[in-house]
């Protein structure tokens, strides 16, 4: 005998799966990054690395003043969070 799932139960299961999946796609409440934006993991976490690598200034105006004197461009990174901290 072949047991057939009642179509109502199947629909409910699909709906539940959909809701669970969409909940997992929700943005992180703090950084608004969706899990599916994550590509791959591959390198050791190195929070100290960026602090040593690029010299950051706290204000664009200050950076512009230095850039003007040295004839360089200004690179300005707009972020959400604090670059000195390990937030987003």
């Amino acid at each position: 005998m072949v047991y057939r799932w009642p179509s109502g139960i199947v629909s409910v299961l699909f709906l539940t799966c959909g809701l669970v999946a969409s909940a997992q796609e929700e943005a992180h409440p703090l950084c608004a990054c969706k899990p599916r934006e994550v590509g791959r993991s591959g390198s050791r976490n190195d929070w100290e690395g960026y602090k040593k690598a690029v010299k950051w200034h706290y204000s664009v105006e200050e950076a512009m003043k230095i850039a003007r004197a040295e004839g360089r461009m200004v690179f300005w990174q707009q972020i959400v969070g604090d670059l000195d901290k390990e937030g987003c």
Partner: protein
Amino acid sequence: MRTVTFSDGDVARVVGDTCVSAWRNKRPDMKIPDGLYKGLSWSIRFSNGAAAHNLASIFADPDGTVIHAVPGVLDPAAFKESLEFARALRARMYEGAVRRKDADQICAEAHRVAADKTEDRVLREAHKRLAGKALNVKALPATLFDGMQKVYS
């Protein structure tokens, strides 16, 4: 980008050689605790263009002219490509430190051409927006790329 792109020695060298760098929190009212990712032993690598509503890399001349701006995460290769685009465009817009009279037209045309060439949807949209109007750092709206996440998604 911090633990991947800005920790990359080559990126740091090129940025240091060609730019003076600054950062700004575009949503200072949003409270993000320090150590959000503490204990995470592996870096999370995002795809290029992700978090387009949160992140933007902006390249400008010291006179305030925005030369290039890219929303979202950029891996080292994409970042260096954007930086090189900005450097080359700046060299065309300025003769030494003097801004050419047609600098705005040169900038707009370069972005139009780049928008047509690139296959990256986020980058294409960014180029289109930059081709439309000359921007200055002082008047640059923090919301310039808000809504770009829809393009990425």
